[in-house]
């Protein structure tokens, strides 16, 4: 019997013993109910920025909230703190009604969708706390001419497209060289933003140092994932589908670690905050956004040129095209793969920092972009780095611009998806057309814009 079997045997015995112990214990112990339960109420004011059209959320303090059980008896109450949060302890996992006292809202604030009264179901207590969100404030969009709105969206879209492309190139390169579709790539984006945020805001380090360090950390993070997870898996000859499932597990773990470190709320960088936008023709852009867009553009052109011209870039493309052939011509494919992970990590981190400057840093900023990256890569052609670059840029542009309708249709009484053309896609659904677009691309031209058909046999 080899040591592995012996270990397994011991483990089996241990499990059996535990089960028996549990059973015996279960016979004598009494059922229990009590737990440390609470409902967490969060009140936020949504303000729409007239210039960018983006919605920001700000906490609302001093709002009174009452919790009652199904019989209507009050079981707890609380007042929101300066984070807009009230934590109200509860006696048991059961159904409750949470009511917000609208008279305690600040002057001029009104509740948006959902109403003041909310139901909390007993089953919603997956953990011991259930969160109830209230949003207040009316959106007040400035009336600007359609063309200048369009120009603004185009500019924002281009910026977003560049960031998305930066994030997606690494994903595509990793896919190209190893065949792995990495569902944890979004977490590489978040990682960069998080490190930059911690250094810059928590540790008060100048962004000129903090951001490069975060980018290097992103590269190291990518390398570490390859060395400690995927390289061993490749050596063990674990199939690609299994590896893909592993990336899902890695994503879950990382996302939650980030959530624990950062907390659930979106944070703002200390650096380059609160800049006023400068008018450039019809559009309004902050110096920060203009700079990040320019840097992104330079980086992307640099990556494209490097892939085209340098020896390593050519080797990378060779490995993507045909790993066997590449290794038979003396290219060390493992080295290339390592390089690709580092580069992918650094690009993702950069994208994350820029995205974080734009939208604030939260634990899910990367994973929220993942599907758009996939859409971009699919559009460009799975495995083609240029395709990913172009495709993601187009997707980013499309997502931003699609929220602005083309006011050409007479009458506004069309049912929902049709009136989007006229009124623009509602921002809560702005990713939907991109996903649908991806599916249409797959139907019409599965290899994407720049991809190739595959080999059989």
């Amino acid at each position: 019997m080899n040591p592995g079997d012996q270990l397994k045997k011991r483990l089996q015995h241990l499990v059996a013993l535990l089960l028996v112990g549990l059973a015996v214990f279960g016979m004598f112990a009494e059922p229990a109910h009590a737990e440390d339960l609470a409902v967490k109420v969060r009140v936020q004011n949504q303000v729409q920025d007239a210039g960018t059209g983006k919605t920001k959320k700000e906490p609302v303090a001093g709002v009174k909230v009452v919790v009652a059980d199904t019989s209507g008896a009050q079981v707890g109450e609380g007042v929101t703190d300066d984070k807009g949060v009230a934590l109200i302890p509860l006696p048991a996992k059961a159904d409750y009604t949470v009511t917000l006292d609208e008279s305690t809202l600040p002057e001029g604030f009104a509740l948006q969708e959902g109403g003041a009264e909310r139901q909390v179901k007993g089953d919603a207590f997956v953990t011991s706390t259930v969160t109830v969100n209230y949003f207040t404030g009316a959106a007040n969009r400035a009336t600007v001419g359609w063309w200048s709105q369009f120009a603004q969206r185009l500019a924002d879209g281009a910026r977003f497209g560049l960031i998305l492309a930066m994030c997606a190139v690494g994903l595509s390169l990793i896919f190209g060289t190893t065949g792995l579709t990495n569902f944890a790539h979004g977490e590489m984006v978040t990682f960069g933003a998080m490190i930059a945020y911690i250094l810059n805001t928590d540790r008060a380090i100048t962004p000129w140092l903090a951001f490069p360090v975060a980018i290097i950390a992103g590269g190291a993070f990518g390398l570490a994932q390859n060395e400690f997870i995927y390289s061993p898996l490749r050596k063990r000859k674990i199939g690609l589908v299994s590896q893909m499932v592993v990336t899902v597990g890695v994503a879950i773990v990382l996302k939650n670690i980030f959530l624990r470190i950062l907390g659930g709320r979106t944070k703002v960088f200390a650096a380059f905050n609160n800049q006023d936008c400068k008018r450039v023709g019809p559009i309004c852009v902050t110096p920060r956004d203009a700079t990040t867009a320019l840097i992104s553009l330079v980086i992307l052109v640099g990556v494209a040129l490097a892939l085209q011209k340098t020896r390593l870039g050519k080797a990378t493309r060779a490995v993507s095209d045909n790993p066997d052939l590449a290794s038979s011509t003396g290219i060390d494919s493992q080295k290339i793969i390592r390089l690709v992970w580092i580069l992918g990590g650094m690009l993702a981190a950069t994208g994350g920092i820029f995205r974080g400057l734009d939208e604030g840093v939260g634990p899910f900023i990367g994973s929220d972009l993942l599907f758009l990256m996939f859409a971009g890569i699919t559009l460009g052609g799975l495995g083609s780095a240029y395709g990913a670059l172009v495709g993601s840029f187009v997707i980013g542009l499309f997502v931003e611009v699609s929220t602005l309708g083309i006011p050409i249709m007479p009458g506004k009484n069309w049912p929902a998806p049709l009136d989007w053309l006229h009124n623009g896609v509602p921002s809560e659904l702005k990713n939907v057309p991109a996903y649908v677009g991806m599916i249409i691309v797959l139907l019409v031209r599965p290899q994407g814009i720049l991809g190739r058909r595959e080999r059989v046999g």
Partner: protein
Amino acid sequence: MATDEQTLSETARIARAALANVAPEPGVAKPDPIMTAEGVRRSFGGITAVDVERVEIQRGSITALIGPNGAGKTTFFNLMTAFDTPDTGKWWFDGKDLEGVQAHKTADMGMVRTFQLTKSLTKMSVIENMKLGATGQKGEKWWNGLLPFTWLAQEREIEARADALLARFKLDHMRNEYAGTLSGGQRKLLEMSRALMTNPKLVMLDEPMAGVNPALKQSLNQHIKGLRDEGMTVLFVEHDMDMVHDISDWVIVMAEGMIIAEGTPDQISSNPAVIDAYLGAHQGKSLLEDL
């Protein structure tokens, strides 16, 4: 070869006689072609992998397709069996135009192929592998799946046929093992016998001997000849010239995507174009050494 003439079976004599008067030149017409390809081209990016002007496969014969690595033999197989689509060209099987016909339909029509890299279904048992090959199974409709009485009788029939084939290919002792536990050569055998479960008219074998040990090779040879005796047509890719000589009635040579020569085995081994193609591809090694 003179020694062979005496041991030739009845079907072999018929096949060779039918091909005796066919001119040994690329694209030549055969008396009774089962498969015909015309103007079939397929390129990948810059490389033209297949560019066949015309080729016919004689019914009831064993035809060898040879050529250096990268000549386009596998791609040609893929194109004929609809695993890949050509950029241009037409091809027929048994008189039926195959353009736009899906891969699984070609198998239904009686055209079955094996793969250069064996595709045994590793986590299924050998007998399950075999039973999968049978066509027209009633139980393969999902609504029948739940009603065993609709397919149990047929299943027993299929199993008997599969067992007979396994015995013939000497795999019967592995019947209940996972296919993944077979050796490389045994997998080749399994894939071939599984293909036969479809009751094909034309069997297309992509390098059936690669990785098979010499002892097994001999019996494989006999099996392939046996197929012809049972009325099937065989088209196979092979590098071993001795074996090609031994069993084939006709040889087609491919290089750089094109058919460069055709003829009986004897005609081919003395064809300068063939020697040239091999020498060109293999930089000066002698033909026999390499093949």
